């Protein structure tokens, strides 16, 4: 209880940071993942090859390495910091934005593979009908195939989002002030490992359980009946 009263405000701030990280990364991953999936099913050899290589490399790299690469590789070696260096909050902003970038790049590979699996469940007749009406490949994908593929994989996308929410804890390695960083600090200060651990685990469940429930509800509601 003392822990809660002492760290209550910080706890809230840290979890809000976690939510921001997860939400922004989810949007980035969804956009990039959809683009990658479109590339992987396209008739153009070069697009397929680039997307396949990207997915295989990034998906099989530990997330910590991806995050560290964004921080050390991009920011410190190449000087790509995604912020205005004169801003007073440039250091924290930079690590936050680089973390969002890293999570987006990483999670996009899983989103891509999910959507691609969804595309494979759509009967070939759907895209044949689209083509026979004079719709081009991109139009067929945009209006016919992807909308149905999305609906087919809402459940798996929910799992990916839950994994992403928990993965945001990795951002603590580059100093983003999200929940896991605060947890380390609180444990060091109070040495109440089990209680603190439980509080943070509970905090994450407050985020992930409703996410899971919402996605399974959506999945049922939006299912395409055939």
């Amino acid at each position, binding site marked *: 209880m003392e822990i809660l009263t002492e760290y209550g405000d910080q706890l809230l701030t840290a979890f809000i940071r976690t939510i921001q990280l997860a939400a922004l990364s989810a949007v980035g991953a969804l956009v990039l993942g959809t683009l990658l999936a479109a590339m992987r099913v396209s008739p153009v050899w070069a697009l397929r090859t680039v997307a396949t290589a990207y997915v295989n490399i990034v998906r099989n790299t530990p997330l910590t390495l991806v995050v560290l690469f964004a921080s050390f590789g991009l920011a410190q070696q190449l000087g790509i910091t995604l912020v205005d260096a004169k801003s007073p909050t440039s250091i924290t902003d930079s690590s936050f934005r680089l973390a969002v970038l890293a999570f987006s790049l990483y999670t996009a590979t899983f989103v891509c593979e999910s959507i691609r699996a969804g595309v494979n469940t759509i009967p070939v007749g759907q895209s044949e009908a689209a083509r*026979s009406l004079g719709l081009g490949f991109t139009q067929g994908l945009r209006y*016919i195939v992807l909308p149905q593929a999305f609906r087919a994989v809402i459940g798996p996308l929910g799992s990916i989002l839950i994994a992403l929410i928990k993965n945001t804890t990795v951002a603590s390695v580059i100093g983003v002030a999200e929940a896991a960083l605060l947890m380390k600090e609180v444990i060091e200060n109070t040495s109440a490992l089990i209680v603190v651990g439980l509080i943070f685990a509970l905090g994450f469940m407050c985020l992930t359980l409703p996410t899971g429930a919402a996605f399974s509800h959506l999945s049922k509601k939006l299912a395409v009946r055939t």
Partner: protein
Amino acid sequence: MTISQNPETTLDRDAETGGSQLMISMQGVNKHFGPLHVLRDIDLEVARGQVVVILGPSGSGKSTLCRTINRLETVDAGSISIDGRALPQEGKALTRYRADVGMVFQSFNLFAHKTILENVMLAPLKVRRLSKVAARDRAMALLERVGIANQADKLPAQLSGGQQQRVAIARALAMEPKVMLFDEPTSALDPEMVTEVLDVMTSLAKGGMTMLVVTHEMGFARRAADRVVFMAGGQILEDTTPGQFFTAPATARARDFLGKILSH
């Protein structure tokens, strides 16, 4: 009917008469599926307004022939053209060509996540760039014509097979195609729904639409076809009038086929 195979003279004639009399032309078309030679030296010409029914046992290549005309199947050799325009390779030219060739599939292939009305409106909106109002008016008029206007806001899965196929016909007609291809349009239907689809097709035929119909419906072939093309083993064996074909087929293969079909 004399047919010029020189595309330039065909174009000249277009300019003079406002359209070639030759709507579908296939010359020396060959196709293999692996070791299987599914189309062998196909030469087929369909004049404007003609209704041609393709008959033949399964595996004879009739569906494949139908699908090569709008390049849902590619061919290994030969040339195909619609209204004097050669079938293009991939790209914008192909989508423009396909927009003029309506196709109706055995499995309907209505867009499962869109309503009946949206199914019919989509291509006019996105391909023909019609305004929403114009696309909607055209779609409703066509749905009226095939007798489904009162179901416009339902999803395909809520309709019977016969109704879905009539929507599929309306969807193809919404593009105002020059030619309609039917690939076994009634084969997936319960018997009592076949008539409603054939009635729509018959009225379309009477209205002067150029049609190529792959079917097993002998009644439709007798009633609505100008010509019957009989295929077996990837070849066209007979190309004649329905009367001639059903009363006096020229080949043994066709006699055998008719014997099996008409005996039950």
